[in-house]
């Protein structure tokens, strides 16, 4: 049976209630046995009914007096005893009740019960976030801003207390629990039918792995996103089909490669994933030449692997010779000028301060810049609390692994298909450049969001009805402004999924088929406008055919029948800048 607060309460209150019952019984018995006299002085025995009456008002300190007849001295003696006994009994019972309210296990049980009941009653799609660390906090805040419901599991009560202090639109349900416990996952709604996704974001790779396995086994339908640092664990997760695996260091290695080879593609990904509000690029292109990498841990290894792939000349500085087993590395941390000189900083174009200690990284960066002010600085930030220091430093590229994880997690959870696009663009830079050109033309420097439009299962009813009738609808139709069909929405189509086929950057005139999924990128406003085309037959007809159809039933039935306008030629792209490639 499930643990519930009522059982704990009953168990704790067992002794006080028994004591109270016995005190009452003893009191009643005494009054029945002790002889009294009635109003005429004749011997009289109190019956049980009256004895219980007397005890009831005496024990509760109400004290009506001596009923029904004045007591004898023996009865009075007994009354004194009953008063003290019953006061003790009630004090004990009430004291136990109050202590129960302050009892930690009891409070915990109450809280768990409230949590489970709250999660059970969620009626909208929600996400389960395991681990409310700094990454988890960023992800929860972002999901909440996007209007999505969140349930949180976190082991550390102090971290979870932050949940109460943060401002949320709809407050997430949070529980202090070990995410490795299947029972906790169940209570958090692992088998709930509205569960839309699980995000395993703890600091512990093993715990994330356990969550991923539990989800696969207990609710295989639900997508899982897991954060990992260890490549072996990542491979393990991939082996049983974890949907999204985010290794911040691998992602950063890819970013570095892109910054070297195709900075515009990096910029595209930054805008799609990072939802960067500022049109300014986060980082300028990386210069080619001699690089110094300080720290050869997991982070440093990814960076060096990336530089090796690109054929750059790298010098490694690492204090622990065991870590740099297969590479020649200069001993030291890189915080001293001598070490940087011997690594050849005079001729270097860039330096990566990638140790797991923020003070060392800052020290490396400041020293390097003193020696060579124009050097390209890549700095790794480990602690959130050091953000002001890193902001003051103003490195060319500040790497915050939790920001990478949280941005990716939110983007992939909201638009799962985005990962396909990212993978394709990373391997096909020309397509990435083209996508960036289209995006800049259509959206400019506005804030970008991504979404998927499915032409199936009633997600786009108006379009599905039109396709059923054999009407031709193209990708470009979905990008017209519902208020004025000659202008375009601030959005582009990134990818079209048709069965097994993935069509990167579908041409504007491409006709849609039932069952298609289209991945769009554009402003949040554009997404709202597009929903009108998808849902409303009249808007669709206006946008596709240029017909303004009366809306109401009466007008449709008896109003003038308008003849459809000729289909607007698809090639007419002049009015819509977004499709120019």
């Amino acid at each position, binding site marked *: *049976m499930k*643990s519930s607060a009522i*059982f*704990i309460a*009953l*168990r*704790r*209150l*067992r002794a006080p*209630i*028994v004591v109270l*019952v*016995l005190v*009452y*019984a003893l009191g*009643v*018995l005494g009054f*029945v046995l002790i002889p009294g006299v009635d109003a005429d002085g004749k011997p009289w025995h109190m*019956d*049980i*009914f009256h004895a219980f009456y007397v005890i009831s008002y005496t024990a509760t300190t109400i004290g009506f007096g001596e009923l029904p007849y004045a007591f004898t001295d023996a009865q009075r003696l007994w009354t004194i005893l009953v008063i003290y006994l019953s006061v003790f009994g009630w004090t004990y019972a009430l004291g136990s009740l109050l202590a129960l309210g302050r009892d930690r296990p009891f409070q915990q049980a109450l809280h768990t019960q409230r949590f489970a009941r709250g999660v059970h009653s969620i009626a909208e799609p929600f996400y389960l976030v395991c681990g409310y660390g700094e990454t988890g906090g960023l992800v929860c805040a972002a999901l909440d801003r996007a209007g999505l419901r969140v349930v949180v599991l976190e082991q550390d009560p102090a971290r979870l207390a932050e949940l109460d202090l943060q401002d949320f639109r709809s407050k997430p349900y949070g529980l202090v629990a070990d995410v490795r416990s299947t029972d906790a996952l169940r209570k958090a709604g692992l088998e709930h039918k509205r569960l839309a996704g699980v995000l395993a974001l703890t600091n512990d790779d093993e715990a994330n792995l356990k969550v991923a396995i539990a989800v696969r086994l207990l609710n295989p339908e639900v997508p899982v996103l897991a954060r990992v640092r260890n490549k072996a664990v990542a491979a393990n997760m991939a082996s049983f089909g974890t949907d999204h695996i985010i290794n911040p260091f691998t992602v950063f290695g890819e970013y570095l490669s892109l910054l070297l080879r195709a900075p515009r593609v990096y910029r595209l990904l930054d805008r799609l994933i990072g939802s960067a509000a500022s049109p300014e690029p986060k980082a300028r292109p990386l210069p080619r030449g001699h690089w110094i990498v300080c720290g050869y841990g997991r982070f440093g290894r990814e960076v060096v692997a990336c530089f090796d792939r690109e054929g750059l000349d790298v010098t490694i500085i690492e204090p622990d010779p065991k870590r740099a087993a297969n590479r020649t590395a200069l001993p030291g941390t890189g915080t001293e000028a001598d070490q940087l000189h011997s690594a050849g900083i005079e001729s270097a174009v860039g330096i990566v301060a990638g140790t797991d200690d923020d003070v060392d990284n800052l020290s490396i960066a400041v020293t390097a810049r003193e020696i060579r002010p124009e050097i390209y600085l890549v700095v790794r930030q480990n602690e959130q609390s050091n953000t002001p220091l890193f902001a003051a430093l103003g490195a060319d590229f500040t790497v915050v692994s939790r920001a990478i994880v949280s941005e990716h997690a939110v983007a992939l959870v909201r638009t799962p298909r985005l990962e396909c696009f990212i993978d394709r663009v990373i391997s096909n830079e020309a397509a990435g450049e083209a996508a960036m050109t289209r995006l800049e033309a259509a959206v400019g420097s506005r804030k970008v969001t991504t979404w998927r439009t499915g032409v199936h299962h009633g997600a786009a009813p108006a379009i599905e009805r039109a396709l059923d009738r054999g009407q031709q609808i193209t990708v470009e139709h979905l990008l017209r402004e519902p208020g004025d069909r000659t202008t375009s929405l601030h959005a582009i189509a990134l990818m079209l999924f048709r069965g097994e086929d993935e069509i990167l950057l579908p041409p504007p005139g491409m006709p849609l088929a039932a069952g298609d999924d289209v991945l769009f990128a554009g402003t949040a406003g554009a997404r709202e406008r597009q929903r009108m085309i998808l849902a409303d037959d009249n808007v669709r007809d206006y946008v596709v055919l240029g017909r303004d159809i009366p809306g109401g039933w009466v007008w449709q039935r008896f109003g003038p029948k308008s003849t459809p306008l000729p289909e607007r030629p698809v090639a007419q792209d002049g009015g819509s800048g977004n499709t120019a490639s």
Partner: protein
Amino acid sequence: MNIEKVVFAFFIVLSATLNFGFVYGEIDNPAHHDVYELFASVVVNIVAMVLKFGDRTQVGAVHLATSIVAVLQLIAASIAWAWFAHIHGSGIDAAGISTVVSLSAGALLANIVSLVLLVSETLALRR
């Protein structure tokens, strides 16, 4: 031997025996039914019920349910007795005592179920 088990079994058996002792006799003969035995029966049944609080097993739940039934029946019997003896004005006559006894006979049935549970549980342990 476990003192908790002894107390538990003691109260269950005692509540059944007291209950039986009160019910035993001709149903409409007030002389066969002692009101003090009813009183003792109520008290012991309440204690037995409280002792069953907080057991999370399936058997524990049935135990508690039978005790609640017995206590409710016995309290109803006591109220009926108080009604006939003091409020109704007729005193305890044949009709009054039959009502009280039949209500506590119902409680006896619940107590017997409780006894059966206790015995079968003990036998299942085989030690």
